[in-house]
């Protein structure tokens, strides 16, 4: 069953196209990921789906409701965890959730029970009466995820849910996301620019410059890359590259002192390959392709290359400060 349907939605800001005729369907109960560099149009798409922005063109249907025509019904069907923090840090964890329960019209009988249930799930029940300002970044994030779930939404939006968190906390957050998918039988729509995280999704749309350039399961996307990735060094990389492309007809790329090429069944290929090489191999490795390889294959760029601007750095710093 389809729960989100985006039909050629576009968003133009002052002549600049942020989202360009994006089209996709999300099935009930899946974790659907939007993967792409910063500025690719991920957050704009989320903002359209959760009624904060009106699309310039196109129609989006969520839980059977048109996001432009029936925004209140869409809003009642979704929970959102924004990229930037959105808790009231002067209130306690419990007060933040109670506020949310009230504006989402949860009945009095249900409210207390549900708040406790959510706080227990995110393991913040013992800290319920503490002011949020005293929480760590990971705790605040968990509280935001818990808040997004409080009103039994059909779809939970997570916009870069682990941005600005350390790797350990990041894994922790992912455990929660998987857990809640099992428990609450909810659909999750998330964006990320971390490749490793996108692997957690059931299906991924790769988005670049406002357009979806590929959409499939992580495994099938990785099949786009021709097999396994072999990385090697030799004493004379130039000669070795010539030899490899000559013998196997493969495209060999040079990457900071390494040679990289793709081959099916890499493990079986290796022994024979090393034996036949005239140019002695000094080191070699074989690995399964990652989504980074997929992105590189599709766009010719690495995903993080564009994310290092000064503005981004500033924002990340501010965010980290507030997350503390």
């Amino acid at each position: 069953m389809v729960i989100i349907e985006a039909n050629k939605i576009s968003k133009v800001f002052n002549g600049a196209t942020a989202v360009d005729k994006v089209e996709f369907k999300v099935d009930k109960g899946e974790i659907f990921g939007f993967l792409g560099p910063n500025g690719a149009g991920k957050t704009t798409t989320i903002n359209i789906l959760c009624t904060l922005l009106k699309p310039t063109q196109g129609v989006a249907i969520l839980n059977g409701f048109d996001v432009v025509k029936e925004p209140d019904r869409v809003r009642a069907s979704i929970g959102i965890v924004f990229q930037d923090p959105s808790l009231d840090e002067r209130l306690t964890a419990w007060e933040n959730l109670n506020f949310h329960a009230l504006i989402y019209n949860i009945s009095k009988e249900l409210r207390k029970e549900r708040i406790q249930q959510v706080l227990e799930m995110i393991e913040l029940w013992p800290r319920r009466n503490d002011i949020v300002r005293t929480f760590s970044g990971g705790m605040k994030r968990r509280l935001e995820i818990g808040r997004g779930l409080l009103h039994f939404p059909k779809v939970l939006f997570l916009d870069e849910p682990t941005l600005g968190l350390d790797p350990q906390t990041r894994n922790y957050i992912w455990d929660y996301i998987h857990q809640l998918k099992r428990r609450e039988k909810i659909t999750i729509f998330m964006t990320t620019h971390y490749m490793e995280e996108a692997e957690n999704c059931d299906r991924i749309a790769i988005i670049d410059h406002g357009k979806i350039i590929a959409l499939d399961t992580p495994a099938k996307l990785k099949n786009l890359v021709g097999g396994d990735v072999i990385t090697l060094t030799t004493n004379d990389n130039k000669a070795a590259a010539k030899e490899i492309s000559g013998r196997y007809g493969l495209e060999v790329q040079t990457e900071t002192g390494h040679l990289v090429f793709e081959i099916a069944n890499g493990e079986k290929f290796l022994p024979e390959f090393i034996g036949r090489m005239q140019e002695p191999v000094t080191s070699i490795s074989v690995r399964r392709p990652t989504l980074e390889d997929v992105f590189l294959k599709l766009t010719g760029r690495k995903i993080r290359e564009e994310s290092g601007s000064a503005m981004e750095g500033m924002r990340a710093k501010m965010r980290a400060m507030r997350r503390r």
Partner: protein
Amino acid sequence: MNMVNLRAIYSIWLRDIIRYRRDRSRLISSVAQPALFLFVFGTGLSQGLAIQGGLGGGNNYITFIYPGIIGMTILFTSIFSAISIVWDREFGFFKEVMVAPISRAAVAIGKAVGGSTVAMLQGIIILFFAPLIGVSLSIPQLFLVLPLMFLIAFALTSLGIVVAARMATMEGFQMVMNFLVMPLFLLSGAMFPITKLPGWLKGLTIIDPLTYGVDALRIIMLGPKAGAYSLVSDLTIVTVFGAAMIVLAVFMFKGTE
């Protein structure tokens, strides 16, 4: 207004009350400023100038400005509460409210009710100075003063929301202080009688809504002779202004994306 939006108004109001209760420094500083005006400025000026007759009702200066200082406290708190919307926007909390399935009108009204309650509470604190000033308030007087304080606060908070609705950053806050709050305060006749002013200044006091709020407070607390206008006209003007402002505030909120 259906049940959903009433609950939303209540929750936004509740949040303002919780935050107010928790913010001790705001509580202390909010008493300190009016106390300074009242006791230092008030005492100093009433000693320096032996103003006779001009204040109406034969009050001394410190008694005369007492209702004005209550008006000032309400003004500052109301505008400050409304401007906190801009903080919420900068710190992200605003988004939590804007994606909720509640009407924008409920958000604006909740904020207006919350801000005015806080401003009224601040006004009540200043009421405790009454015995020190030598003003005695009867129970019926108190029953009139409290709703009046709320009415003034509601009108001013709504005005503040209209201003804050389109403010993107707190950088505009100083502008609001200089070009809105200070003129509203100084032109309201909180610190001087407005009956014998030169024409240009008189004209400016007439367009200041706080003039009528302060005048009404003065009439109720110090007697009808202390006022420049009648209580009925004061109340009418404050009510009409407040109604216009809340309608405008709701309208401004509907346009925000």
